[in-house]
């Protein structure tokens, strides 16, 4: 749609941004206008006085980017160490950990047993089919499945957190099964990584 007011809106956004930048201590919230609702003729009164509030022109944005920490000489980061392998893949509609991922799960179980202060987050993922919240629950099922494997290998619950990203980390718009397959997985992430 052609919008003749676009430039003006951009300008007002810029002005708002400049105001935000310039006057930190100045309250930005314009008080909701007290709106007089005068009837223009005697029989025309339809509503009591109302205010135009919830003014989104004062919406303030919050930016939330964290910092990832890295460390050298870390077996978890060594590409030659099996501990650097972090993905467990699943069949369609399944939460069963397949045999091919057994050595990797065992390696992480051993590391966690030897490093009792280490904590791991198991992040479940799904492909894009279905609703976001439901897929969040399905991904959770897969992370719980990997957790149970670690539990059986002696890892304590206190060292494991199971979460899910659902379909949020899925490769967008998969056209085939080979693509969808990459999305049905649990990622093993250590705390402070």
């Amino acid at each position, binding site marked *: *749609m052609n*919008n003749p*007011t676009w430039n*003006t*809106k951009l300008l*007002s*956004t*810029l002005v708002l*941004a400049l105001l*935000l*930048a310039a006057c930190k201590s100045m309250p930005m919230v314009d008080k909701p*206008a*007290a*709106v*007089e*609702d*005068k009837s*223009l003729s005697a029989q*025309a009164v*339809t509503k009591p006085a*109302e*205010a*135009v*509030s*919830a*003014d*989104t*022109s*004062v*919406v*303030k*944005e*919050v*930016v*939330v*980017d*964290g910092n990832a920490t890295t460390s050298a000489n870390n077996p978890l980061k060594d590409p030659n160490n099996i501990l650097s392998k972090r993905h467990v893949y699943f069949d369609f509609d399944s939460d069963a950990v397949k045999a091919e991922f057994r050595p990797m799960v065992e390696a992480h179980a051993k590391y966690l047993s030897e490093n009792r202060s280490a904590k791991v987050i198991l*992040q479940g993922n799904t492909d*894009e*089919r*279905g*609703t*976001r*919240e*439901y897929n*969040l*629950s399905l991904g*959770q*099922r897969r992370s*719980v499945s990997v957790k149970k494997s670690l539990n059986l290998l002696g890892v304590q619950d206190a060292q494991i*957190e*199971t*979460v*899910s*990203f*659902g379909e*949020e*980390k899925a490769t*967008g*718009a998969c056209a085939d099964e080979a693509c969808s397959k990459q999305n049905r997985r649990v990622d093993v992430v250590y705390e402070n990584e």
Partner: protein
Amino acid sequence: MPILRLTVFFTALLVASLAHAALEIEISGGSAQQVPVVIVPFFQTGTSADNISNIIAADLKRSGLFRVLEIGGVSSRPADISQIKYAEWLALQAQAMAVGKVETLPGNRLNVTFQLADVLKQTQLTGMQYNIAPNQLRTAAHKIADVIYQKLTGETGNFASHIAYITKANGRYALQVSDADGENPLTMVSSKEPIISPAWSPDGNKIAYVSFEKKKPIIFVQSLSGQRSVLASFKGNNSAPAWSPDGTKLAIVLTYAANSQVYTINADGTNLKQLIKSGAIDTEPTWSPDANWIYFSSDRGGRPQIYKVSSAGGEVQRVTFEGTYNLSPRLSPDGKSLAMIRNDGGKFRVALQDLTSGQVQVLSDGAQDESPSFAPNGRMILYATRTGEHGALAAVSADGRVKQHLNEAGGDMREPAWGPLIK
């Protein structure tokens, strides 16, 4: 903190240049029911950014219930009901005509007056006056459109309301709020990690949402003025927030170390209670408008279906029986029907179930439609769809007749939530 302020500056710039929503309106059916109206261009002094009459006319057209008549054949432009020469307007066969003006007042204020006339009876139907700041002109226009809508249809309008949605652009996710017509998009929060499930508080001043910024889903509550706090950050997932109708509580979904389960929690984060216990997935809770029930989706029967339970807990009752896959329940504001996402022969679509008769009508026609959300008056359902590889927003009337698309050029929009009317 100059760096933080610069970030705000550049992000605001980005939002203004990339996220400007463009509305493409597609209306099907229902034309016989359209009310013919005339919106005379308001007399407007000064250099105001927005043309108030155009905003009012666009709102009315978009509803699908009005035909806004061309007035090129009439030369007069009355700004007050006393100036209307009715004989000039009779030939247009309008049911009603709106006139008004926007005047600049001292102290950077605007005075907006508006009157609606019955053209045949030559009488005033209603009139309003608003004393506003210049940046409230669009909201005043939407309120006037709501007054016209209410006067001529007998129903409450939706125009003076906000929508929230998530965008994904350049690897960043953002929770945005705009007017219901997609104009004035503003970013409430942005992050490198996903943001999902925005939910408006009933007073329209806050939004609860799920952010993955800490490597796991955590529920935040943020006011429109920027106060942000954690509502739920328990072990495991924290997701699917749904406000109770009185705004004092939310239903949420937690996992701790097992499957998703529904809890309730006070809006201040206290008094966490598990609502129902099951070994299955229970998620996507939503309150009935009378607050007596919580509807949710569950795979307790093998395939995902919608169930309900008293908001005090207790016995669970199944609600959907048709189809093998029903998710994302949302109750209409009158509590009489249930919108949901149904797998309709491999296509995920918005469907509406009459809770009295049990009859279901599929309303949308996409392949991956998600996140149904009722307009405050229940007449429209906003949802997420896909056009090509991009996510877009669309709306369909509850009778399936009127369809609208809201597209953002080159961007990705999803997870819409229609907020309450602006008070």
